[in-house]
Every structure is written in C-alpha cells, then in structure tokens.
C-alpha cells in the first residue's frame, strides 16, 4: 500500500476532499502546516520594525491507498488542488508496509 501526502493551499482543502470522496476514497487525515518554498512569504512591518514571514499556511493531506489506486488518486488531488499559481504545493508517495484498522484489527486493503 502507499501513503500519499499532499501539501496544498488551505482554501483548496474542501475541493480536494470532495474530489477524493467522488473518487471513492473513504478516509484521509489532514494537518495544518506552514510551507516554505518558491512562493516565498512576505515582509511585514510591525510597529515600524520589519519582519519577514518566510512561511505561508498550507494544509497537508495524508491518504493511505492500495497500490493500484495511487496514480488516480495523485491525479485527482493534483487536478483538484491546482490553481496554476506558484505555491499550489506538492504531492509525494511513500511505501506503506502495513496498515491496521484499530477498531477491528483488519489489515491491509480491508483496513482502508
């Protein structure tokens, strides 16, 4: 199985979630994160003193899926999260050796 991690713009979360639902994904885990990248942050002045905010708010979405589902899911996310502007984010895929559903102890595909 694979873990797909997508870092996207916060206001795109709903779109991505809905897209994944329609694609038959039944679960995901979301984390508020801060991103540093090409998009860059912006410089503020606070009471006259400057300060640079390098990080911009992002949302990370973790989805564990069967191997065969990976490509579709990646495409679905990419499509739903894209605005064409710098800072849209990344998607990366890592290997999952084992997945367990706590409630039932089911493993692998059944646990998704």
């Amino acid at each position, binding site marked *: 199985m694979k873990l797909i991690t997508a870092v996207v713009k916060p206001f795109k979360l709903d779109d991505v979630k809905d897209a994944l639902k329609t694609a038959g994904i039944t679960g995901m885990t979301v984390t508020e994160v801060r991103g540093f990248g090409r998009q860059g942050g912006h410089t503020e002045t606070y*009471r*006259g*003193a400057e300060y640079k905010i390098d990080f911009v708010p992002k949302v990370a979405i973790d989805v564990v899926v069967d191997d065969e589902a990976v490509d579709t899911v990646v495409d679905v996310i990419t499509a739903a999260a894209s605005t064409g502007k710098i800072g849209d984010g990344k998607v990366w895929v890592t290997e999952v050796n084992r997945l367990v559903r706590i409630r039932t102890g089911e493993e692998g595909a059944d646990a998704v």
Partner: protein
Amino acid sequence: MRNTRALRIISALGGVVAVLAIVPSTAFAQDVPTTQDYLNNIWVFIAGCLVFFMQAGFALVEAGLTRAKNVVNIFAKNMADAIVGITAWFACGYAFAFGGDGKWIGDSAFFLADQDMATIPSGGLSVATTFFFQGVFAATAVTIASGAMAERTKFSAYLIFSLVMCAIIYPVVVHWTWGGGFIAQDINFGDALSYSDFAGSGIVHMTGGIAALMGALFLGPRIGKYDENGKPRAIPGHNIPFAVVGVFILWFGWFGFNPGSELLADEFVSTVAVNTLLAAVAGGLFCAITIWLVAGKPDLAMIGNGVLAGLVSITAGCGTVDPFPAFVIGGIGGVVVVFAVFFFDKIKIDDPVGAVSVHGVCGAWGVLSIGLFAKYDDAFLGREDAGLFYGGGVDQLLTQLVMVLIIAAWVTVTTGALFFILKSTIGLRVSAEEEIEGLDLLEHGLQGYAPDTVHA
C-alpha cells in the same frame, strides 16, 4: 494644592457665598454635608472606579502586544501592581503623598490609622474618597512600567520594583505637586503663579514612563530583538484583539482619570471630557496617517499607541484648553509617539508595548503643552491666558519645563538606583533558557492557553 484648588474653583462659580446660598442648612449646621458635597464625593468615587478598571486595559494591551508564552507573566504582573501597589499605598504611599504639609514628604496617616474617613469637608472630598481616587492613580502609575519590562523580567524583582514605586517613588512626586510640596510651593517663574498638571501627564504618566525607560535600559533588549547587524526585528504580539480591547478599556477609564481630576461635580467635568475625547481621536488619527505614510500600512498595533498618546498628552492640559487646541495637542502626541517608538527601537531600548514613548515622551509633551495652549484657569494656573499662544509669555512654559526636569531627575535617579541594586543582588532578568521557553511555565508553572486535557 488640591484643596485650595477645589475652593478656587467653587469661588470661580460665584464664591463660597453662593455655595452657602445653595444650601442654607450648612449656614447653621456646618457639619451637615450638602447634596452638592455628596454629589462631589460620589462622582469622584465613580471616576475612581473607571480608573481602577484601567488595570484590565493595561493588562490586555500588554498581553496582546507580547508573546503567548509570556501571557501569564504579563497578567501576573498587572495583578501584582494592583495588589502590591494598593497595599503599599495603604501602608505608606498615601501617608507620604498626602500626610501633612511637609515640603518634601508627608509623615502621617500610615495605614490610614486614626483617620476620619467619612466626614466630608464642605465643598471638598472625604479622606475615604481621596484615598480611593489617589490610590487607583498610584496603581496606574506603576503598571505603566510593566509593559516596557515585558517578556524578560524576573517576577520577584518586578514585585520589589512595584512595591518601592507605590510605597515611595511615586508618592513623593505626588507630595511635591498635588500634595502641596515644594514644586507646588516654589516652582513658578515670573508671571507664572504655579505649575499645572491637571490629571497627571507628568505626575503619573511621565513618572511611569521614565520608570519604564530605566527598566528597559537595565534589562537590555529581548533575545532576538536585534539581528547580528543590530537592526531591530519585530516580535509581533500574539493577540491584537486583546490589545485593541485594552485600548478601548483604557480610553473608557480615562473618562474617569481626567474628568474625575476636577475633584468636584461641576460644569468643567464635561469640558474636560470633551477635550479628552478630542485629543484621543486626534492622537489616533494623526498616528494612523503618519504610520500609513511611513510604513505603507495602517498598522493597528501602532494606532492603538496613537490613541493612548493623545490621551496622555491632554491629561495635563484638559482643564485649561479649548476643544480645538485639545485636538491639536492630542494630534501632535499621535505623531510624536510614532517617531519616539522608532527612536527607542533604534537606540536599542527594547520596549515591547511602547510604554516609554506613550507615557514618558507624550507625558512630558502634555505638561509642556500647557505652557503653549493654556487659556483658562484650571485652578492650578491661577490665571487666564497663561499659554504662550495666548499672550501669557514664556514664564508658564519655563515653569512647566522645570517641573518636568525635576520629576524626571527624581524618577531617573531613584528607579535607576533601584534597578541597579536589584540587578546586582537577586538579578533583574530571567535566564536565557527561561526567556526562550517562556516565563509562564518556569516562573508561574502555568500555561496561558493549556490544551484540553482528558484523563479518560
């Protein structure tokens, strides 16, 4: 000279005669207070309540403009200012300030022992009313410094500072002025009959502001405030809503601070209130314009300072100027505060909330502004048109200046000595590690915003 002052004002309204006329009973029963006497005391007490509420305003402004990891410490210091400050005021502060007419310091009424609290002298205030109103002023004066010393001061050291400030340093300033001491008696040049500081731009705010300056100076800047090139870095406050609500509460409280300083319920209460209102909005307005031009954004954290700057600036002159000059005085305060903040940032005095600029600098400006704009007799001046712009010449301005210098000298020396002693004994500043981790956990063992715990 508050007493004579109260009397002066009354005569200004037609003289003690009229007062008696109003209440025949007093003619044959001097000891029966009149409704006017009750009104005077009730009003000044209510004003004192508004001033007391400013404690919450100070706490919110300071907390809002500092970091979440130190928020408990901020509130603890403000609570301590009220608790320790009033206790010290009760023990000896009031006695030093108003206990007898010694030239240098009062010497009676410690712990209010054997005071006739209730009796109201005709046309005046009872001891109880004076103690209450002046006591909440004292608590305000000390609280001013806590903001400038935020995020790095040892709690125990701060407590001692707060104690000494309300026990002796501030009371002496009050005794010399409102208490009828040597500034009230001897500081008047040429045509000037007396200093004037109606509600305490200098006596309260500049005193607090200079203590704040010395505190920030002896503490040194917070870790990370300046980059390797010594360029100041912003350390944004963690809760702007707190800061703005705090400003509104302070503004609200100022309507007790200034109009209440009339110490009577007469027609000048409302004129003082109008001047206070106009100076506040002018301070906010011109501060906003200035920071918008300079920084390119209407920085709300600065605009809040601007409103307070306007309020501090008019605190001395609110009893003697016309509405438009009040607007001007406040507006100048609003511009000055911006550059003062920049200046102290530049010379590496790290004042997280701008207390030195708001209370120290604008406090001094407020006292001086009387020398320029004074028109009416506020019962300190003892004459009309005392201001330079009203043909009063420079004498009043000079008098005001000397008053500023005397208070500044006294507070600088005493607080300087105090901070020096603290620094070289128990220490003034927390460890670098503690400062980085935040003062809340290590000083107070309490998180400002604890996550919900569930022990299932």
